[in-house]
């Protein structure tokens, strides 16, 4: 149910479901963990930079996982690093999301024949969005972040919080305006 906004002489009021209003607030304030291993981390920094400003979406980087919502796997993951990334993921409070940025984090990238690269972040973490590219342009990264936003706005948060699990939410569902 889309929120209904009514103007009245002394201001106005909006009527909507709690889910919608909560998700509206949540999706416009995604804090990502300042984490990057390889080349994709540079594109992540450029996305946070002046031209493609991620801050206008309400996204800012946090150094500690305890304050972060989104773990952006930016760069190649090695076996030595994988256990540390799992530790970072476990420290993040719910609700949390994982974005695999670039081909190295999605499937291992061009390091398929390498002996020390994990062939994709989803072998040890639950990934929500995959962003292709080597490295993805800032516009692609913004598209991926917007997909997470669409995923969040469909989440029946109260049902989830009260123990009734939601059905699988497909981020490619038609977007409501």
């Amino acid at each position, binding site marked *: 149910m889309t929120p209904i906004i009514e103007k009245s002489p002394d201001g106005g009021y909006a009527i909507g479901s709690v889910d919608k209003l909560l998700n509206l607030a949540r999706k416009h304030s995604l804090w990502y963990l300042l984490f990057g291993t390889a080349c994709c981390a*540079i594109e992540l920094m450029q996305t946070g930079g002046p031209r493609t400003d991620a801050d206008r979406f309400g996204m800012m980087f946090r150094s500690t996982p305890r304050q972060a919502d989104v773990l952006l796997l930016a760069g190649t993951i*090695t076996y030595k690093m994988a256990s540390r990334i799992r530790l970072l993921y476990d420290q993040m409070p719910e609700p949390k999301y994982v974005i695999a940025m670039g081909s190295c984090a999605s499937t291992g990238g061009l390091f398929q024949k*390498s002996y020390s690269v994990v062939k994709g972040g989803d072998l040890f973490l639950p990934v929500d969005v995959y962003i292709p590219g080597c490295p993805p342009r800032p516009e692609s990264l913004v598209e991926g972040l917007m997909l997470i936003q669409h995923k969040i706005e469909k989440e029946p948060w109260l049902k989830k919080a009260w123990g009734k699990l939601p059905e699988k939410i497909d981020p490619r569902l038609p977007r409501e305006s």
Partner: protein
Amino acid sequence: MSEPTQTGAQREELVLNMGPHHPSTHGVLRFVVHTDGEIMRKAVPEVGYLHRGLEKLAESQTYAGYMPFTDRINYLEAMFTEQAYAMAVEALLATEIPPRAEFLRVIACELNRIANHHITLGCITMDLGAYTPFVYLLRERESINDLIEALCGNRITHNYLRIGGVAYDVDNIWLGQLESYLDHFEPIINEFEALIVGNEILIKRMQDIAVISRRDAVAWGLTGPNLRASGQDWDVRRDIPYGAYPQFEFDVPVGPLGRGQAGDCYQRFLVRVEEMRQSCRILRQCLAKLPEGDIKAKVPKMIKAPKGESYASVEGARGEMGCYLVSDGGKNPYRVKWRTGSFSAMSIIEHTSPGLMIADLVALVATLDVIAPECDR
């Protein structure tokens, strides 16, 4: 070992872990810091968190097909690694590179040097607490990214060089854009100096901190701006010339410049600022002297280098980037080894760290300009 404090309690050594995920480490580097309060006994670096096996991957790729992998070794200055690899293969094949290709390689490399120093200087100031210069330099780096994207199609990890030359040619429109970029950028270096270089807080945090003497720098294998800041006057472009560099006139900044003693953090910072200026100078000379001609020499479609080995080194922005190539006559390289500046720079940290404070360790690592992929390959 432990001295009684004012309250009479005994003090012991504390072992702290910094990294591999840490806001101040450049990439995934880890330090195990043995400290007594704020003053460190030693900081032991641990690397290997980004070891992707690029050297072993060469053995399963063809000579020409390995070029995109060389970008990933140092993605901030990818043209240098590509050039080192191309030069190593060309030394074995004994190919003659056309002059226009050499000039285009120099243009690409110097643009990469400026772009790399943007991130380095920005990260140095960001680690020490000043966030604004970093964002200013990110904005400037976007202009270089646009130029390079127009040149070869990708903002970083370019895959622009080929064995025998370069892949794409430039036209007058691009050269005009390069010239207007240089006109725009040279005053920005002065603006950057006015903004942050003379800042008293920066000077206090970097001057006379973590001094690396010239003997130590040479013995531990430091190269590039780190070596020059310690007082050794050495630049591969001028002293073992390669490519088109003999035709250019440029100065090589050697410490001490300005305030402070040779080998401290502030000198390493100043040398990089001055190098950006010299790179602009080289680019202007390139624009004036660019010859016409082919952009790639004739090499066979399936390159099979003759048996032997070669070592080619270029002056990268982080130090000497060397490629040691062993060939056994087949179509894949037999062994490729990368000699990078960050590996040596990481190894000297354990030697320099005793007596520094933990905050100085951040300044040391930032000014030595180590990044994880170059160290781990």
